[in-house]
Structures are given as structure tokens and as C-alpha cells.
């Protein structure tokens, strides 16, 4: 039986507190919805990676590999810097 996505929308009691803390005082369901993870889970359970990429490609962010990698690396630096800031705040 294939796994159907990995993003949880049901959580155990033990994890609820951690998710509430991560949501920063907002309802966990709202936080998950804002992250788009519930929708991502639904899509991931019904489409393959190839189908998803085809769908994105047809809509066309329209970048070359070189431009895409440049932006991806920029985003990766941003994500790591943001993570570092978040950890300092705690």
C-alpha cells in the first residue's frame, strides 16, 4: 500500500502541545492551512511527482535551469538565516 503524503493533519496528544507552540498562539488548524500543508497532503496523495511537475511546468514559472538554481540557492540562504534568527529568539 502506497503512503499517501506525509503531512499530518491529525496529531497525537503528545504532539499537540508542540504544534500549538509552533503555531505561536494561533489555532493549529489555521496555522497548517496557512502553510498550505493540508492542501499539499491532498494533492500529494492523488498525483505523482511527474504529474505535479508537469502541472507546474505547463503553468510556467518560465525560468531557465540557471536562473532557477540561482533563486533556489538564494531561497536556501534565506531559509537558513531565518532559522538562525528563530533559534536565537528562543
Amino acid at each position, binding site marked *: 500500500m502506497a503512503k499517501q503524503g506525509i503531512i499530518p493533519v*491529525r496529531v497525537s496528544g503528545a504532539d499537540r502541545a508542540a504544534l500549538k507552540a509552533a503555531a505561536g498562539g494561533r489555532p493549529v488548524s489555521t496555522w497548517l492551512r496557512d502553510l498550505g500543508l493540508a492542501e*499539499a497532503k491532498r494533492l500529494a496523495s492523488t*498525483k505523482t511527482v511527474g504529474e505535479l511537475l508537469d502541472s507546474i511546468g505547463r503553468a510556467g*514559472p518560465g525560468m531557465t535551469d540557471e536562473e532557477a538554481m*540561482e*533563486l533556489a*540557492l538564494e531561497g536556501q*540562504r534565506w531559509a537558513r538565516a531565518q532559522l538562525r534568527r528563530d533559534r536565537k529568539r528562543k
Partner: protein
Amino acid sequence: MLRAVIDTNVVISAVLSAFGTPAEVVRAAGVEFKLVWSAGIVAESLRVLAYEKVARRLGAVGKTEEARATVARLAAGADMVPQEYLPRIRVVEGDPSDDLLIATALAGGARVLVTGDRRHLLSRGELLGVRIVNAAAFAAELGLPGAPRRKGTDDSVHEPVSGYADEDPVMELALEAQRWARAKARRARRA
């Protein structure tokens, strides 16, 4: 089947250039090679999709959810290395965050890391027995037909950050996802 770790930047690049060479590699995950990942890589990929410039690009064509779903789908089909099995190593000079990629490869039995990070990773060629290649080289190695050949690497520099994403909320979510998937697999085995 060959086991390989794919860096976040290759996944994001694949989403932004869905018919390009990194996308060819991503499409081949689970078919031509076994993807080895860990929760930290999933979390970072989701975070990068929230980066303003990336989100704007995808949002403009209404494909934000598909991009997130691509990451989720990859993770669902990957061999996810449990967090507790990741060795604490410090081998990537200049960017300790990249240590997670090498640790994931070592713990997951992958001998290849596919990345677009030329400065910190590709320039090393190999670390602790893990071969480091770009998407084009890996696609050629797998014999993938490939997209119109465009260069898939760059000269970007990573900011150094320290340690793993242990206290990152998205990381916590990714770890929860990992637990959920395992519990589901256990239930399926029992049934």
C-alpha cells in the same frame, strides 16, 4: 538501486524550471534511484517555498500548492533517515548546515549527493565517501534523456549557520510527519 540524497536547492530548482535538468532528476526519484532524505531537508524545502521571491513566482501561476505537494510526495516516497540516526559531523567548511546532507547520506547508505552548491559542496567532489555531483552529471550518470541542456549550477555563496534544525517549527512538523508515516506503515503491515 542507487541511493542518493538530493539537496533542497535541486528540488526548488526543479519546481521553478519543471522541464529542466534538475526536474529530470527529481522525476527519476523512486524510479531510477532511491531518494534518501531526512526531516531537516523536507523542512528546509518547505521553508524555501515560502521565500518571497519563490512564492511570488509560483503564486503568479497559481502553483504554490503543487510545489508544496511535490516536496510532500518526494518525502512520502523517500527513505527517511530518522533524526536520531543522523551522525553529528562537521565536515563542510563555511556552511555547517550542509553537514546535514552528508549526515543523511551516511546514515541512509547513500553514496551520492546531488546539489547545485558549487562553493561549499561541488568544489569538494567527495566528502567522507559521499560523491558530490550536480544535477546534470547525475542525470547523465542515470542515462536520463534530459531536458534542453541548460547550465544547472551557479556561483552562489551560502551564509554559515550553525547546527541542526532541532527547534524549528517546520522541522517539528516534518518529524511529526515522519512519525505519522511510520505509524501508518506499521498499521498497514499489521493489517
